[in-house]
């Protein structure tokens, strides 16, 4: 059934960049993932907003898909939570059937299939990031509409617009874990300083072959902000 009033062909510069329906909660947000030497670094802000009300200031947008694969969610909170649950379910089945860990590109592909085939009803911009034994650390950006792009670093959410220049300028291949974490925190802090739909704290997740590590930086200890 086609909804006449809703389309995923939404205008990112409008006041409703994700084409959210009235009352729908958005993770209007800043999300960022980049590989480093030995794994991937994921980062996100912690604000969930409904219009200009912050419904949550300590949200966790870093969502488990499998032991070494996580996704970062932007767009509709409901849509992205539902899709992530489905992909997590698929991946757990695959793990049992194949007897080995799923590949990051498999997770990205599954996510892309759902977003693409429901492109008119979903508001979801998701970054799939993880590590697998075949290709190591990888990052895939599944943008609204369902394009799946393998990238050297992935940005998403409303706040990402403000940090394309910063990331283009400062990203380099083969960073260390500490360099990657510092850059992720810095970039997300800059985005939070300018984007009203992003805010709160910065959560990071480090995914390596050995395991995963969470980190959280409170809102009064950010490396940058507020603006001048």
């Amino acid at each position, binding site marked *: 059934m086609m909804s006449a009033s809703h389309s995923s062909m939404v205008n990112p510069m409008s006041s409703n960049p994700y084409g959210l329906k009235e009352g729908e909660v958005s993770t209007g947000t800043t999300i960022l993932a980049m590989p480093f030497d030995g794994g991937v670094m994921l980062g996100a802000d912690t604000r969930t907003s409904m219009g200009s009300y912050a419904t949550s200031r300590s949200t966790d947008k870093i969502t488990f898909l499998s032991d070494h694969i996580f996704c970062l969610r932007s767009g509709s909170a409901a849509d992205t939570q539902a899709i992530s649950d489905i992909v997590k379910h698929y991946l757990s089945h695959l793990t049992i059937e194949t007897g080995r860990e799923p590949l990051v590109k498999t997770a990205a592909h599954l996510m892309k299939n759902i977003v693409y085939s429901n492109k008119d009803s979903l508001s979801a911009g998701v970054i799939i990031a993880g590590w697998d034994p075949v290709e190591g650390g990888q990052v895939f950006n599944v943008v609204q509409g369902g394009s799946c792009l393998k990238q050297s670093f992935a940005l998403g959410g409303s706040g990402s617009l403000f940090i394309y220049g910063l990331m283009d300028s400062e990203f380099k291949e083969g960073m260390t874990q500490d360099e990657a974490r510092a850059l992720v925190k810095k970039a997300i802090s800059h985005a939070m300083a300018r984007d009203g739909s992003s805010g709160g704290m910065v959560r990071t997740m480090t995914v390596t072959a050995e395991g995963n590590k969470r980190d959280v930086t409170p*809102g009064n200890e950010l490396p940058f902000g507020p603006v*001048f």
Partner: protein
Amino acid sequence: MWGMNHHHRSSAPADPKSHTTRPIVTGASVLGVKYNGGVMLAADTLLSYGSMAKTMNASRLMEIDQTLIGASGEYSDFQAIQEMLEAKSLQMQSGLLQEREGDEPPMTARSMWNYLRVVMYHRRNKMNPLWNSVVVAGKDGATGEFFLGNVDRLGTTVEDNIMATGFGAYMGVPLLREKWRPDMDEGEARALLEDCMKVLYYRDCRAASRIQLAKVSADGVLISEPYELETSWAGSTDYIPLNTPLALP
């Protein structure tokens, strides 16, 4: 008749009329509270451009003739209101409109509030509003009492001991109502306003942590320099999300 020099506006090239149909550059909440000895306002220094934080050095609290005004909403309309009130004050001072004695300002806070009501309602009737909610605070004439009131873009007026615009009306007013007492001193008033501004910073996506305070007391008007609020993230960092498999120490 055509050919005669009437100099009617309608025969001149049409001016591009500007109507504020929606706000573009906006300020968030303004809060106000009367205390024992004066009245105090608070506002953050952020101007937003839609959801973008455009500048953090805007002053949304202004003094005109010993009365404070603060506004949320469209910033260009607030600047127009400032100019209009300053012009009105000069016009009244020149003595054309009234005989006055001494150093009393031409408008008390209450009369400035009423003048704004007239202006805002008039604009509303022309479907070209000044898109602001203006808080007026100051001395209420010779009585020594203090005044705190609000005028919105429809021309609605309210007068009370506590005042808040924007999101502050939803999230600040309950806190102000809970804590307000007529015998609050300046320090308590400041603490109460800061507490409300912190809550707004956490929960209003268009609010910021750099704020300004302004007060009117027997000593006159004072507008503070902007300063940062201390924010608390206790409890939020303790939240341990459920799904962290293979967690490394």
